[in-house]
């Protein structure tokens, strides 16, 4: 683990402790990466986009926009070295893609997802240089998140074509996508850091604007488990123990008992909300969720 220095005499990455730690060892053999045909296959889907269950059917390649608000290009709004992902992934180079196919009332990056085209188009060469720089600063992986990265699938694959040979790839997804996305990603993702947000159709409809979310995400988790190192994240929502947390943990124990589970307690209530909880999660709720997960025999990780 790198030490952090806060030195007023330094600037930029150095002042933040993100120093060059030397050239990290390369993997024993290059990892396979998407070829041009894989990227072209993903791009074809944009002409009548049905990448996610919204099934908008719009021609994003021609500039039309569906629910996610994206055209055919990938738009990245931030990249940084993150020190507090799950321990086995940290430090992690996060790359944020704008645009999402959910509308979580409590989203903390909503401003980037509501107007994704206000974000600059991804500069692939610049991002590849950033991946190399972050790797030299100690990043153990490149971590694709958003928004929802899978709605920018051709851009994601174009990035992976350039970096996956030497970099472990983490896909941090809400898992709300159609089966074709799993097929297009199969083989290129090392770790799937998967959200499983709700436990009921009613909560998913009210909180995420996606009544079918639970069924879709659960199906996709099963598929992701076949070809990735799967970590399932569940954000504890205040007051949603019986409808969301408990059913989610029980489903995991029954269907994917071997996967790693990460309980998250960092819910931030939105300033204005119709359905989202207006309070922060309490320690008793965290303890109850943790205890239930342990009682079910789940593999909890931090």
């Amino acid at each position, binding site marked *: 683990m790198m030490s*952090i220095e806060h030195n007023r005499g330094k600037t930029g990455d150095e002042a933040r402790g993100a120093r060059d730690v030397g050239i990290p060892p390369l993997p024993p053999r290059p990892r396979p990466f998407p070829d041009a045909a894989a990227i072209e296959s993903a791009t074809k889907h944009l002409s009548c986009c049905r990448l996610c269950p919204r099934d908008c059917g719009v021609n994003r390649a021609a500039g039309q926009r569906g629910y996610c608000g994206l055209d055919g290009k990938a738009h990245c709004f931030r990249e940084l070295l993150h*020190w*507090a992902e799950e321990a086995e992934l940290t430090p992690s180079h996060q790359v944020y893609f704008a645009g999402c196919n959910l509308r979580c009332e409590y989203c903390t990056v909503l*401003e*980037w997802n509501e107007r994704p085209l206000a974000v600059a188009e991804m500069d692939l060469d610049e991002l590849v240089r950033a991946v190399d720089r972050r790797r030299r600063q100690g990043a153990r992986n490149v971590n694709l998140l958003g928004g929802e990265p899978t709605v920018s699938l051709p851009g994601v694959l174009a990035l992976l074509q350039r970096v996956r040979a030497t970099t472990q790839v983490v896909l941090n997804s809400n898992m709300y996508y159609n089966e074709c996305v799993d097929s297009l990603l199969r083989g290129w993702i090392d770790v799937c850091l998967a959200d499983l947000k709700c436990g009921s159709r009613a909560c998913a409809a009210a909180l995420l604007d996606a009544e079918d979310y639970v069924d879709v995400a659960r199906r996709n988790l099963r598929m992701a488990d076949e070809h990735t190192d799967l970590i399932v994240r569940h954000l504890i929502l205040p007051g949603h123990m019986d409808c969301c947390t408990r059913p989610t943990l029980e489903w995991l124990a029954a269907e994917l008992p071997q996967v790693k589970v990460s309980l998250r307690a960092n819910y931030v209530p939105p*300033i204005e909300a119709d359905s989202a909880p207006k309070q*922060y999660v309490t320690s008793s709720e965290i303890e109850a969720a943790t205890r239930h997960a342990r009682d079910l025999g789940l593999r909890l990780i931090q």
Partner: protein
Amino acid sequence: MSDKPYKREQGDFELRILSDGRLVMIAPDETLMEIAKTLDACHCDERGDEAISTLSMGDCFAPLAMTDKPPENTGVEQQHLESEDAEAGTADSQ
């Protein structure tokens, strides 16, 4: 000044100071994340606890001090500051 709550714009971040002493950082840039990490570590050192991080994709809590009594105010005590390098292609990626 509008009586409606401020809505974050792209490039903003949001700080909330909760009544139980926690500082919540929403949509922070890398510099703020380092501050949160340092505060969290200092707090844990004072308590003699292991560092338990709650930093996540777009938001940070620091220091970690969970309470059974939810704070009464969730959005009143806040400041909005402009982030210098929150936009794509700026300081971090150059």
